[in-house]
């Protein structure tokens, strides 16, 4: 589309109509990808073209305005380009204003950060439009600060709004900040409260970053708000939005470049690189001449094959390890021991069994003496190794310590993690045990069966159905998986029952039902995993019954993490306990649980809880169906 107005007064409205119609039919990309760059170039220096462009967009009928404006906002190469193209359209046209200030920011969240930058930069560039910028910021903050929005809107939308807020903040000038300082402060306080209350770490972090940024802007002198959170790419990206890079340094390479300019730009680069190679070239002859004059060649090197990395020897016996870990002052040896401990324990099961409880005790209290990489993981793997080598006494020790005085929350949660990892290892067939071992690299297991059961419960149920039906002819058989005795069978109860025993007995420093609900949540999840892993063990029925009672006692807990854990417990029970046992021994509990689940599906505020409850109900339905289909 290239039109040349030869100084005539031409009517643009026809073109506007065409543009609008094309855009609304979804062909924004095609037409605007040609139109926008052309117009960007033309409007750069030429005022007349700017006015033509403004007339063009102003004349687009209202019913197509949204499509056109959106298209422009998305395609424009920068905020200043957008400003030249649209002019004060948002001020003059109500529909455009609605689209720009409300629809794109509050009702949609699919746009990229670049689009947000364009849009908000555009609003900030003209004094008439700045009022809109302030208004937009207030509305964004209102949404950001409303607790219902934080609880119910998807994280992506919250991130989008946070980004928009940060960009707005970056555009605000001093006098404007002064005038709305009070409002910013109030919205920040409210908003930060709702965000920190959330269970999801991502939401909490968004809240923290935005609050910090607001505080930075309004308190230029004096202490600013500072939170501690994990800095990763997302956090850095958000923070970078606060600083507006001067637009002119980014844009220059693009504008007024026909291909000539590009070639011009290419030329200096080529020259520079030539220069560089020239400076490199003189170096080369020097080195070459050096090589010729080198009389060092007559210095013959000696054999250096013995020159290897220096390694401190780690102890070779498990008892030596205990000595080093408890007493030794030699930090090198201590480090080497910590690194070597796990493999030693695994290679010498008999020796380990003699000292297992002592070793477990030492490991539980082991603190980092020097800075070793992966200390936590090394310690945990050693603990798991000890636990799997001698399950019963060590499990007894660990579970009793879980409920003892004077342990930190971190240590109690470590105990839970170690129990889970060891149970996982024990319940898998031996050859799998090895591969699983390398798979279980992550020190903490989060929500493992919760996600497992939600994703592949169908597969598991199918497999159980398959295993129950009689086959008269086997088709091509699959490769036989390695099998071995289930080592978890004999010890499942030892892992499980002590943990469930004392949960309602508060100690002075540890109250599961009170403020330590984080540990309670972890305990519940751990029990769910142990239950899940106990499939095919003898104790599974007793465990299931105890677990259902436990769930019943805690079912109205206020923390959603705990509730999610309870629901995973139910899934594990339904999946692990054989159906006959479920229906015969636990009918009452099942019925009660079912009614509770129904309640949760309808009324629970947390999305994950509702989803888990629904899956549990489906699992129970499947049970019933299975019973009907299996020939009795």
């Amino acid at each position, binding site marked *: 589309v290239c039109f040349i107005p030869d100084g005539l007064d031409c009517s643009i409205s026809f073109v506007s109509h065409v543009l609008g119609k094309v855009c609304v039919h979804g062909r924004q990309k095609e037409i605007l990808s040609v139109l926008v760059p052309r117009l960007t170039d033309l409007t750069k220096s030429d005022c007349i073209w700017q006015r033509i462009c403004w007339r063009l967009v102003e004349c687009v009928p209202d019913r197509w305005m949204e499509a056109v404006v959106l298209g422009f906002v998305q395609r424009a190469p920068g905020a200043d380009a957008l400003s030249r193209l649209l002019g004060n359209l948002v001020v003059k046209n109500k529909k455009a204003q609605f689209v720009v200030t409300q629809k794109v920011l509050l009702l949609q969240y699919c746009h990229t950060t670049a689009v947000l930058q364009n849009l908000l930069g555009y609003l900030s560039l003209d004094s008439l439009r700045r009022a809109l910028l302030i208004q937009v910021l207030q509305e964004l903050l209102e949404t950001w600060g409303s607790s219902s929005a934080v609880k119910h809107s998807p994280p992506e939308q919250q991130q989008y709004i946070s980004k928009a807020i940060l960009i707005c903040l970056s555009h605000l000038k001093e006098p404007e900040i002064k005038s709305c300082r009070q409002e910013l402060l109030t919205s920040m306080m409210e908003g930060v409260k709702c965000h920190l209350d959330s269970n999801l770490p991502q939401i909490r972090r968004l809240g923290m970053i935005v609050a910090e940024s607001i505080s930075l802007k309004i308190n230029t002198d004096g202490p600013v708000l500072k939170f501690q959170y994990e800095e990763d790419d997302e956090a850095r990206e958000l923070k970078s939005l606060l600083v507006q890079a001067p637009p002119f340094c980014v844009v220059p390479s693009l504008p007024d470049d026909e291909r000539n300019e590009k070639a011009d730009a290419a030329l200096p680069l080529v020259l520079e690189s030539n220069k560089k190679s020239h400076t490199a070239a003189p170096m080369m002859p020097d080195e070459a001449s*050096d090589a010729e004059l*080198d*009389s*060092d060649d*007559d*210095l*013959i*090197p*000696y*054999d*250096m094959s*013995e*020159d*290897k*990395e*220096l390694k401190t020897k780690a102890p070779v016996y498990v008892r030596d390890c205990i000595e080093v870990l408890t007493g030794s002052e030699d930090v090198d040896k201590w480090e080497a021991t910590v690194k070597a401990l796990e493999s030693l324990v695994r290679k010498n099961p008999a020796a380990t069994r003699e000292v297992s409880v002592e070793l477990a005790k030492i490991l539980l209290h082991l603190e980092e003496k020097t800075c070793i990489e992966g200390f936590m993981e090394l310690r945990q793997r050693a603990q798991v190794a000890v636990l799997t080598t001698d399950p019963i006494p060590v499990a007894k020790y660990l579970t009793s310590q879980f409920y003892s005085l004077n342990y930190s929350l971190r240590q109690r949660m470590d105990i839970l993690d170690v129990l889970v990892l060891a149970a996982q290892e024990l319940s898998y067939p031996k050859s799998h045990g090895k591969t699983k071992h390398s798979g279980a690299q992550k020190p903490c297991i989060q929500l493992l069966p919760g996600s497992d059961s939600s994703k592949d419960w169908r597969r598991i149920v199918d497999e159980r159905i398959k295993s129950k039906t009689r086959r008269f002819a086997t088709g091509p058989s699959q490769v036989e998986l390695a099998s071995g005795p289930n080592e978890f069978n004999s010890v499942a109860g030892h892992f499980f029952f002590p943990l469930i025993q004392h949960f309602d007995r508060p100690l002075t420093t540890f109250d599961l039902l009170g403020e330590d609900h984080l540990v309670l949540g972890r305990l519940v999840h751990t029990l769910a995993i142990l239950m899940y892993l106990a499939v095919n063990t003898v104790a599974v029925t007793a465990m299931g019954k105890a677990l259902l009672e436990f769930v019943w006692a805690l079912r109205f807990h206020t923390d959603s993490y705990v509730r999610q854990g309870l629901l995973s417990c139910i899934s594990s029970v339904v999946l692990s306990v054989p159906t006959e046992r479920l229906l015969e021994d636990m009918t009452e509990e099942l019925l009660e649980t079912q009614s509770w689940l129904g309640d949760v599906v309808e009324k629970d505020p947390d999305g994950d809880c509702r989803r888990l409850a629904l899956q549990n109900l489906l699992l129970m339905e499947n049970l019933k169906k299975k019973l009907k289909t299996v020939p009795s």
Partner: protein
Amino acid sequence: MALPPPDPQFVLRGTSAAVHALRFSCGSQEPDVPILFSGSENGFIHVWNLKTHRVDTALDGHGRKSVYCLETMGGKDRLLSQGRDQRICLWDLAEGRTAVTDSVVTENVGFCRCSLLKLAEGRWLMAMAAKALEEVQVLELPSKTSVCTLKPEVGAKLGMPMCLKLWQLNCGSQPLLLAGYEDGSVVLWNLSMGKALSQLVCHQEPVMSLDFDSEKAKGISGSSEKVLSIWSLNEQQNLQVYKTHKLVNAGISDITIRPDKKILATAGWDHRIRIFGWKKLKPLAVLDYHTATVHCVSFSDHKNPSERLLAAGSKDHRISIWSIYTQT
């Protein structure tokens, strides 16, 4: 087929403490015996007779505090020693005397070895770490007058000076100082103006030791990490990195270039002494004798090239003497 590395020519035992400093004095003619001075952690300076391999005298001048730097000032009769008692002592050892003629109180509690440069007969410049954390003071000896104090600019955050080297291009030209600091940078100082001419960040960890070849305007520095850094000085007196060399094990306590500028030796925390060719830093040998960190290495100043020796002092109380690459 490369030969296995040589064994030490002989090993000196008897210091009964870790050896931190070594200095040869073998330039004098017969009937004077070649001498090796060694400074130990127990405060003694042992004067070793290299013919009999025994200690001739033991000097006790630092109150049983570790001696970590030794320098000879024109022959074996004048010795300078620096100890952890915050003193630098000047000894007169002629005709069997063992007297401390003079001392300088440094008020510095660090480990930075001082550096000595002969300006003219009887006149020396000495650079040492001063009382204030980042400063280096240059004194003239024997008058002990302060020539200048080198202070890094505010906010430079160089840390303590770790190692110093005074040098001048030829007799009579401007003396300059190279200092390696705790933050891993090497700074070239102009003494007359008291200003830094150039700064180069060579290492991520503190610079433990450095040495400089004024003819080729090339220097080498070692740190507590695994990298040796070789840097050069261009005409504008700017330092730039020439090359780096990665070692097998981390930690270098001392580096010294042989007076004929053909090879250099490094003393490593991994108990090994490494020999490199100086021209292109070609690894030549790894001498593995000691059983603890090697603290210092030193080349002898024999007039006859075939008699040249390398000495290494270690935490295991031994001093190993090597005869290596003496043919060139």
